């Protein structure tokens, strides 16, 4: 089966600012894929190009077999979209808006089941404008999946979630991906979330994908060099190396025994990630 999303050499320029400088992506069907990057990296830009809301400057893009710039209504019906900022339909009731947007699809989810799935059953009769930030976000997710999309786009979906809601949200996405075979593309700037949730993650920094793979592959790809320190001639010495174990062994050989003040510091994944995006920017 063809990929759900395939992107080659995607470029986007706003005026003279080059935000995307050749992005390549391949998202398989049924996978949860996160696009990770710092503020302003171009995550929203990328996702909106895929949704057909924004015209790219150059490159080839195929989403569910169509070019998003020429997407038909039938194509749109196969997508679910949760954007980063919206405060729409504030005067509608929670259940009312879920039922209303469901009407646009042939095989929409039942509003009550859906509200139960995102934990909003207690708020069904409430006005949308009175929901808390996290509840509002869950409603957005519900509205994104009401039409049983094959491919769901989520732009920073967990902003404003408390830890419990975040956990439940991860379970919900996993269930949707495994039971319904839904493909999910979500953006986040939280490395831990990407690591926990995604089958694969791509890091967007400096307008390009700087690393891509499963959590383990990613950890290996981004691992920043370790620092090995020791005391010699009364002074502190240090080397930076990708292979701290070998460096320590060589030191032991040279000293012919214990190395005074030996210390090895391997940066955490988070520190490695920060260094990576620091290098790319």
């Amino acid at each position: 089966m063809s990929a759900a999303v395939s992107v080659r050499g995607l470029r986007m320029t706003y005026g003279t600012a080059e935000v995307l400088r050749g992005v390549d992506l391949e998202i398989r069907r049924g996978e949860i894929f996160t696009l990770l990057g710092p503020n302003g990296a171009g995550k929203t830009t990328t996702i909106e190009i895929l949704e057909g809301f924004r015209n790219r400057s150059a490159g080839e893009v195929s989403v569910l077999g169509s070019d998003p710039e020429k997407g038909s209504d039938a194509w749109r019906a196969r997508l679910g979209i949760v954007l980063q900022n919206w405060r729409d339909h504030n005067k509608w009731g929670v259940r009312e808006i879920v039922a209303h947007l469901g009407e646009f699809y042939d095989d929409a989810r039942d509003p009550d089941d859906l509200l139960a799935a995102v934990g909003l059953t207690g708020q069904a009769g409430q006005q949308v404008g009175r929901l808390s930030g996290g509840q509002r976000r869950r409603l957005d997710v519900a509205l994104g999946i009401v039409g049983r999309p094959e491919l769901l786009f989520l732009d920073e979906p967990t902003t404003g979630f408390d830890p419990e809601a975040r956990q439940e949200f991860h379970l919900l996405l996993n269930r949707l991906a495994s039971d319904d075979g839904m493909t999910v593309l979500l953006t986040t700037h939280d490395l831990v979330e990407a690591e926990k949730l995604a089958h694969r993650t791509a890091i967007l920094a400096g307008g390009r994908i700087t690393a891509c793979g499963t959590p383990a592959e990613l950890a290996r790809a981004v691992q920043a060099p370790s620092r090995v320190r020791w005391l010699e001639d009364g002074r502190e010495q240090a080397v930076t190396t990708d292979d701290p174990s070998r460096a320590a062994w060589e030191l032991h050989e040279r000293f012919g025994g214990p190395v005074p003040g030996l210390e090895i510091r391997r940066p955490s994944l988070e520190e490695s990630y920060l260094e990576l995006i620091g290098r790319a920017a």
Partner: protein
Amino acid sequence: MNGRALRIGIKRGWAEHLQLLRNRRELITTLIGTAGLFALLLLWIGDEQVKGTTVSSGMFMTTGFLAFTVFSNALMTLPMALAADREEGTLLRLRTVPGGIPAYLVGRAVTLLCQIAVQSALILATGVAVGGAPLPHDWPALLWVLLLGTVAVVPLGAAIGCLLPGPKTAGAVLGLPMMGLMVTSGVMLPVTYMPEAVQWIAQAFPLYWQGLGLRAAFLPDAMLAAEIGGSWRLPYVAAALAAWAVIGMLLAPVLVRRVTRRESGSRLAERQLTAQAS
């Protein structure tokens, strides 16, 4: 547009109409703003006569309020609603669903027509209750003038809504021209009270023709003494309103398409930031 978008749009418009009715603040503003103000004016000067005629001010004002209801709903309320829907992301949300934009536009039109119908009924009822207001003697004229008058300004209102930067600036941008038109267009004061230059300008705008058509439906021919040319000029009413309808219908789809096509999440975020900053 397909049948589904039309059906969902009608339901959507009705739902939003009910939401407005349930909104107490909105309801009180409408009640006091239209019916209350109208009743006061009727009690205050309703018994006076329009200069040079035997028509009472109360009768004259009834038609004026009706015309202004259509006009202000289409050219103030509608553009402001469109601007608000853009800023809050409602338009963008409907862009994410198949057939969402046509359904949205149908919905807006339905809500608008419901509002106009409710407010018109309120004005007629107030007029009859307080006294001094006539019932129309020419029902067919009332219907076609109201309908054509609405069709003449709704697309125009949609076009204006697309051009507005945001809902907060809308009131400031639209308020003054609206007041000016209301005073000069002969709906609150007979147009012949105005200097001749103003009369000419007034006749360029649809509000004058809407008002004239409504007066033709409600008022006795005694009123003609205070009308331009001493005639109801109904063919001109039809022609002027139709011309505005055509202008609006040519303009609105282009602008609506441009505005909805440009909607996106980052644009939304940008606008919400500027709205917060100001």
